[in-house]
């Protein structure tokens, strides 16, 4: 585990999944490793009232009904399409779902403008074809085809980035649940058809900002159930997410450093302020180029943590945090710096005088960083 930069969920939580599987006595659909209720428990975490021997941590933060609807969709005949703004945790939810249901979240097709039908169905190992002709051995199955053969979940990231004709290759996979390989000779044993085993389903994600680029065809739409994941606006949940992801990052970098809760508050508050000012801004010049998403917040914190760890005194300070905030958010030379400058002096300075705490140091750090950049 330690030699992986980022372990997939099924490896990372392998032990927890094993344990859950051992205590799970509810009926399981198809070849699922966990029952739907256990999948929900794995993703949303346990409580005291669940009466479990050990605590299961919450891994995805959001409305419970989204998770329930997603699980139920996978247990039904249709594919699941998670749709939402960037940074809302769609892919993470997809990964958790696949890991919990079939212990394999790595059968992923990444949708891009260059994705072809071969990436979804199969392609050929050319040298083997030359040497031995077309056969099942010389065929290279796509992740989706592999998932079909194994009866597990296949994932398709950023479905709407790939072109419509490529997307439509999914239609027959989702309705007929087989892929025929016309290049292979059929001698009546069905060797030229790859059938899906029970348990196969597809989780796709789509960015709602991409709407209109490559719209899904109606035929494909009706083979997917759409679950829309909204942006996190609740401060409490956002704090949870940032804390959770940061801990994970620290563990990955093997850094022993504590993030003081007051600094986390400072970070959340400053993002909330900047979002409010972006919402009030009249033109693009008056708002930061950054989308100020939760993912961005995590980035700022990670940056500050790494900097403190390697170049500082191994403690995270408000000064470092401010420097990292300015460094990450200032992308355009005069505009972004001006906005941050205005923010520091218009909002942070009075707050520092009023509330004290980490704010004055945060202001200092921000000033220095801006001075260096300008």
């Amino acid at each position: 585990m330690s030699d992986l930069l980022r372990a997939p969920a099924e490896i990372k939580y392998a032990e927890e999944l094993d344990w859950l599987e051992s205590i799970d006595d509810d009926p399981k659909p198809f070849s699922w490793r966990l029952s739907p209720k256990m999948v929900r428990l794995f993703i949303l975490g346990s409580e005291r009232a669940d009466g479990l021997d050990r605590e299961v941590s919450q891994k995805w933060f959001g409305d419970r009904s989204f998770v329930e609807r997603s699980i139920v969709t996978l247990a039904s005949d249709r594919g699941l399409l998670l749709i939402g703004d960037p940074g809302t945790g769609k892919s993470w939810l997809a990964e958790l779902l696949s890991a919990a249901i079939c212990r394999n979240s790595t059968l992923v097709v990444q949708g891009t403008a260059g994705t072809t039908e071969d990436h979804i169905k199969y392609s050929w190992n050319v040298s083997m074809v030359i040497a031995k002709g077309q056969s099942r051995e010389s065929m290279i199955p796509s992740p989706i085809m592999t998932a079909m053969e194994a009866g597990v979940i296949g994932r398709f990231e950023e479905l709407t980035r790939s072109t419509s004709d490529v997307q439509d290759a999914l239609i027959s996979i989702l309705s007929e649940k087989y892929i025929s390989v016309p290049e292979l000779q059929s001698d009546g044993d069905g060797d030229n058809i790859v059938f899906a085993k029970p348990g196969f389903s597809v989780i796709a994600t789509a960015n709602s900002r991409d709407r209109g680029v490559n719209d899904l065809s109606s035929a494909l739409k009706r083979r997917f159930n759409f679950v829309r994941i909204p942006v996190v606006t609740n401060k409490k949940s956002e704090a949870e997410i940032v804390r959770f992801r940061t801990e994970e990052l620290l563990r990955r970098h093997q850094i022993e450093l504590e993030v003081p809760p007051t600094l986390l508050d400072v970070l959340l508050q400053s993002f909330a302020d900047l979002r409010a000012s972006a919402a009030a801004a009249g033109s693009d010049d008056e708002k930061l180029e950054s989308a100020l998403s939760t993912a961005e917040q995590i980035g700022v914190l990670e940056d500050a943590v790494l900097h403190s760890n390697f170049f500082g005194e191994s403690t995270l300070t408000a000064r470092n945090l401010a420097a990292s905030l300015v460094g990450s958010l200032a992308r355009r030379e005069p505009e972004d710096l001006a906005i941050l400058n205005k923010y520091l002096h218009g909002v942070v300075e009075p707050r520092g005088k009023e509330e004290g705490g980490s704010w004055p140091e945060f202001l200092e750090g921000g000033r220095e960083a801006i001075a260096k950049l300008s």
Partner: protein
Amino acid sequence: MSKVPESRAAAATSFASLRGQLHEAADRFADGPEALEGILLGMVDDVDRAVGEPLEIFPVCHHSPASALAMARRLREKQPKVVYLELCEDMAPLLTELRNCRLPVAVQAFASEIDGFPAEWAPLSVVAPITEASAEYQAIAYALDTPGVELVLVDRSCDHVFQWDARHEQAGESTGDDTAGPGTGPVEAALHGEAVGVEIGDLRPRFAELEEHLLRHGKVRHWSEWWHQYVEIPLGDSDHDTYRQVMFLIGSLFRRLAPGDGERVRVDEDRERYMWTRMREHLTTTGTDPADCLYVCGAFHAASRVEEFGVHGADSFTISPRTDTRWQYGLIPSSHAAIEAQFGLASGSVSIAATQWAKNLKRTRVKPYRLQGQAGTKKERPTKAAARAAVAPAAAEDQLSGFLSRPPVLDTLDEAELLGWSVDITRAARRNGYLASTADAIAVFETSILLAGMRDRAKPTPYDFQDAAITCIEKDTVPGRRDVHRLVEIMMGGDRIGQVGYDALPPLARDVHDRLAPLELNLQQRGVRRALLDMASHPELRACSDVLWMLRRLMPAGAARPIMGERRLGERSIQESWDLSLGTHQRALIELGYEGVSLEQVLEQRLRRAAYGPQATTADVLAAIEDATLHLAGRRLPDELGTRALEVLAAERTVDGAPEVLRRVRGLLAYYRTHEPVLPLWIESFVKAGYAHYCTLLPMAFTDEDATARQVAAMLGFLFSMESLALSLGCDRTQLELAVAQSHPQDPAKTALLWAAQVQLGTLSREQLRSRCDELLANPLVVPSYPHYLSGFVHALEPVPGLADMVVEAVSNAFGRLPDAVLLPWLPVLITTLRSDAAELAPLLVREAGRIFPARLAALDAWVPPWRQRPAEAPAVRATDGVSLLSAHPATCDALAELLGCTDGWAPADTQPRGVSLLPAHPATCDVLAELLGCDAPWAPAARTPGTATLMARHPATAQALAALLTGP
């Protein structure tokens, strides 16, 4: 009475086992028995106390079909003689009007004139919505329609609602959760306006953590859903005792676990004291046996621990008197969505409750009470008041232990019903533009069952079904007006919107409907009705048209919208067409009824309020006069308001309203001149006062930075256009001339305005103005501000319309003379300045330009602007030009003379200077002059002789010398 202690004792023993169990539980779950045991056993005490009360308490929860069903059953069984109801006591007289309405409607108390509350609270409004599926409606219907039964409302009056409401005092905060913000959400949700809602049986944990906990473990999203799942359905079929005890228990639980908000608890306790005090008063005055009564209140209040609780409670509460605020009462239409929005219920929950109620009735065959002649229901045979003996309160048995230990009876939704829903939602989705097919119906069905399974339910609830339908049918976009969530709500019963019947309407609303009757439209119904009024062939429709125009003035936009036809001063259409939706805006019409008994009265009040308000400006008062003239017959009100306008004008020190004042006065003057034999006195005084007023303010306005060019132009417009009238009324023009002479503006636009005014007054010639413009264009330092001068000139078209050609010339010169390098950056400035400052006058300018410039492109090459060709083409005209022609061609004059019959012949041409002939004719002039100069020589003879002859006579030597010269020696 002596039974009471016995029954209490009996009750006390009957809960003993439950107490024992709870005691054990407290020991087991909490660290020490104190706190938890206190709560758990306290709850049993509360239940015990409420059950043991001789006056039967009937705990209810709002919009709970289970409550309504239990109420109907209990009323049939017990037939109480008095029903005490937790509802504002001053709303009682209105309840019988409910039968004229289609439910849901809300009983409203409304006060616009307030006394005793801060003025900024006005208008005060309280609503109590009533649905058919509620316990309170059952109680009301039973009490009002059963002979010999009295209904007594015992809760604090609407006045006390505000007296006790400390939340208002927190500046800037809204009145709390139960106030629906107007304009939020759909129209149906805003039916109650800004009213404060009161409701019987508000039952919800006040302890946020408890609610969160319950929701999480119930695997539900909303409190309404939890209630439906865990209380409503299990209680649906339970007997009376179980129902009561469970409701008492829930009330007590929420009460004991409600920390924090002391203010709210205080109000609740005061209400309980109030209610019990009222009930005891009623019992003593009427001498009714408490056993014959039923007290309907929210479960929360049933578990009260105040001293005043019970028939034997302490009489220590004094009810504070009401304030002098004048309250008015009425019924307004309500809707399920409005109730949900006002009381923070899940959307669709009231509709689901209504469906559940209908289902329960069918299943249990309980006959509900319904007011006789209740609008919107089928006719029923009148219920006979069965003279059944009142059932004495039996010793309460412990029903709680059994209820609490039984597993909940889960929803009885059957498969056929779910299938029906799945098919219906697919069909509804298809009708609304979704690409839904039978495959979706199957998927919805399957998903509902899977979801219910995940949430530990044997059968899916309507909420599970809704989730399933959204999952399977909703895609990335909503194709039509409604999304799947809303479609499911509609399918589950949908929003019901109530309607107040004609008889329950206030006099004003009835009057409006009566007066609009000739239109022959059903205006009570919701939706838009198109009315066509042809007044030429049906003169009787004129009265309807008057009403409609007043409604348009008084009601919110959309209630009455003219499509064709307009009404302005002096103008009436002969045909009009209107879009009317009085049914949709019934609340607004009813609230209008609180202000007066007829539209005219309300309009007069409003106009008067607008004109006499402390912030009223002259323009406002003039607008009120215009409205009064338009809508109200007679001159009384306009004349009165006219006097007010004079007062306001005299007190005004700014010229902000000048453009509006000018526009309105012009309109009114034009109207009076054409429609009245003489001008009203007020408008004459107004013009006089206005002339003097604006003359006084003019120099200041010219220099004041805050006064815009538009305002100054309007002042000048007033002065110039009203001048003739003002001068005829005794004003002096010198005042205006002096005012203009005193004005020294700095601002370019205002300078241009001043020049225009000077041209109008004759103190500046057009040539001078032209040369000033030329100077401006020649000076590179001033050129950037030239557009502002132009803007001033364009504004000057209002007071001095004759200057239009000069303005065109000024603009053309700028284009003609400025080099491109200056002109191009300058153009946008010109356009934005003109557009922002003088948009309404630009058409005048364009028209004038169209007159001056050649119409065809071909003509442009040869075209010379009129201001350039003027010196060449117009030489000085001499008077003698024509005269010389006449003497050269005498025939013309001969012919003319002949025609005129003159026969005197030609007089010899007068070569002498003309004045000379006057002198001999009037010698006195010369005598006087001579005397003045000191000449005493006598007059020379008349100068008929040539001048030289006179000289000769005077100097004879010359003549002799000349003669000698001529004769020679």
